[in-house]
């Protein structure tokens, strides 16, 4: 057994699990290059047709819209997440800290369906926002939030915010408080010390949080499906439709693969950014 007791026991189940996941991903990859036989679940021979089909405006638009929504969502959850993470890490009383923490992460554990449905009650034509505005007499008829890109983006920001807060808070909590104190002792006020010390030092967390928010938004399904109502579609909705309405699994697979490649590319770019930052830091 030597110096690594139980190595086999520890690794084998994990390796099997990884293998299963790899097989599933390989299955998607394989299907992406197979021909669709309409009306049948069987697939045909090797083809590039699926990827060519993606260039059609309908699909290209959805791709662009998805990337745009992902970028928008990542940006706004960063904007909202940073002050919250900062408040969480710098909270003076433990009670306030606990409140912030539980509030910040609870939505993460509610699941997409409950959260999206809740937004329905907020944004719907007879929902909370319209009800309140009508009651106050500020508007005459309901404002359309449902089935708009704004409504979808709002709900998506809500979905990604907890992850963003956790990643930013993790990064911020690793910054030694003495750096800020040192900046103050050298004559830098709160604004200057934040911009020159805290913000640059939290950059790895910002990049990690943005990347994760991007990937999570790409993964979102129920939010664009319910709030978007078929009018604001993302890649995920298309994949589901193609699979379960048209039974065109090869095309669904090819869309997934391109989406995966795109996510990987974005994460890769951010990773390079992080590595460059770390090199600067040495």
């Amino acid at each position: 057994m030597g110096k690594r007791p139980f190595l086999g026991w520890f690794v084998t189940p994990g390796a099997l699990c990884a293998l299963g996941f790899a097989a599933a991903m390989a299955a998607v990859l394989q299907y992406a290059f197979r021909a669709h036989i309409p009306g049948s679940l069987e697939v045909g021979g090797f083809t590039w047709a699926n990827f060519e089909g993606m260039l059609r405006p309908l699909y290209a638009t959805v791709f662009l819209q998805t990337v745009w929504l992902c970028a928008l969502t990542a940006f706004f959850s960063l904007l909202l997440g940073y002050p919250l993470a900062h408040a969480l890490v710098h909270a003076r009383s433990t009670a306030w800290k606990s409140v912030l923490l539980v509030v910040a992460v609870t939505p993460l554990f509610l699941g997409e369906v409950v959260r999206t449905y809740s937004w329905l009650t907020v944004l719907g034509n007879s929902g909370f926002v319209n009800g309140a505005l009508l009651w106050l007499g500020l508007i005459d008829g309901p404002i359309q939030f449902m089935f708009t890109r704004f409504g979808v983006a709002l709900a998506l920001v809500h979905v990604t915010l907890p992850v963003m807060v956790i990643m930013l808070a993790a990064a911020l909590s690793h910054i030694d408080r003495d750096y800020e104190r040192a900046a103050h002792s050298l004559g830098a006020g709160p604004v200057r010390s934040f911009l020159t010390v805290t913000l640059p030092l939290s950059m790895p967390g910002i990049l990690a949080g943005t990347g994760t928010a991007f990937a999570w938004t790409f993964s979102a399904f129920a939010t664009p499906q319910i709030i978007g109502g078929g009018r604001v579609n993302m890649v995920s909705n298309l994949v589901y439709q193609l699979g379960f309405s048209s039974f065109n699994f090869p095309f669904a697979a090819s869309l997934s693969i391109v989406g995966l490649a795109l996510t990987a590319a974005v994460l890769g770019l951010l990773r390079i950014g992080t590595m460059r930052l770390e090199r600067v830091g040495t």
Partner: protein
Amino acid sequence: MAAEPRPALQVDGVTRRFGAVTALADAWLKVPPGEFLTLLGPSGCGKSTLLNLIAGFLEPDQGEIFIDGALVTEVPVWQRGIGMVFQNYALFPHMTVAKNVAYGLAARRVPREEAARRVAEALALVKLTGMEERKPRQLSGGQQQRVALARALVIRPKLLLLDEPFSALDRNLRGAMQVELREIQRSLGIATVFVTHDQGEALSMSDRVAVMSEGRIRQVGTPEAIYRRPADRFVAEFVGDVNRLPARLVAVEGETALVECGACRLSVPAAPLAAAAAGTAVDLFLRPEQIRTAPPGTPGLTEAVVAARAFHGDHADLHCDAPGMAQRLLLRVPGHAAEGPGARLALLPDPSADAVAFPISG
């Protein structure tokens, strides 16, 4: 009478509580220009609280703080004109050495050329010329400390604060850095408040030492005064090694009091015994090097048996058991002295001994 120079730092009756705990109680302190003052005490004694109050990281519940004659109690840290060296230096890891040192100048909007000149001067002062473009992580512990010092000094602070700056250095480097820091501090004539729990460091570096415990400043004085004439039982026991012997107060005569221990009579400062009546039992404190040995049977403080001997080169420590004493006595004898375990000795006070005595406390 010459006018007293304006103190670089003045702490007037400052109190700070954390919840129910009083971290600092009614502290009074004056640091004249150019003085190196050390706050010494065990962890939790309030020395860090006091330093943070002076720096402005904490606000006092009561009392006022003046830096260079100006009231700063309500002034935020960044406007106090202090320089501070942190325990782990807190060098900004994303900036070069030069950027770190220039940080305070940039915050003060010093013109670029003047800033560059002053950074070069400061780095020359701490012997780091040529290291400008290094990152903190590429420096040794000693070099990091020099950068931290240069960064704190380049802004020409009115007061330099040092928060246990040597605790992260290994022993060999520590001594050299202590000497160097003191040289730089003296050459610039900058008033300095230094925090440490290491009494050796405090005694060797300071102009004056403030000994603290349980949120109170127990005694402020020169290192020699602290060592030879401790004001209370805590200071006597915390600074240096000391032996406690049972004694009896004989009489108080003005500034001095007479106490009796075994067959010896010793004069001690009267102030700590002001409240005690003649005849009451007191504790006599004697440093290890202030006790001499004599053949058994000689009338002295007590008789004792050597239990263990620890050799330290130039001297040896004898740990002795004396009848009726719960604590072992510590004697410091020349390294060549022959007494070993089992030896029976009589103990006598050194004629020049600075003995002190305190009433027995509950």
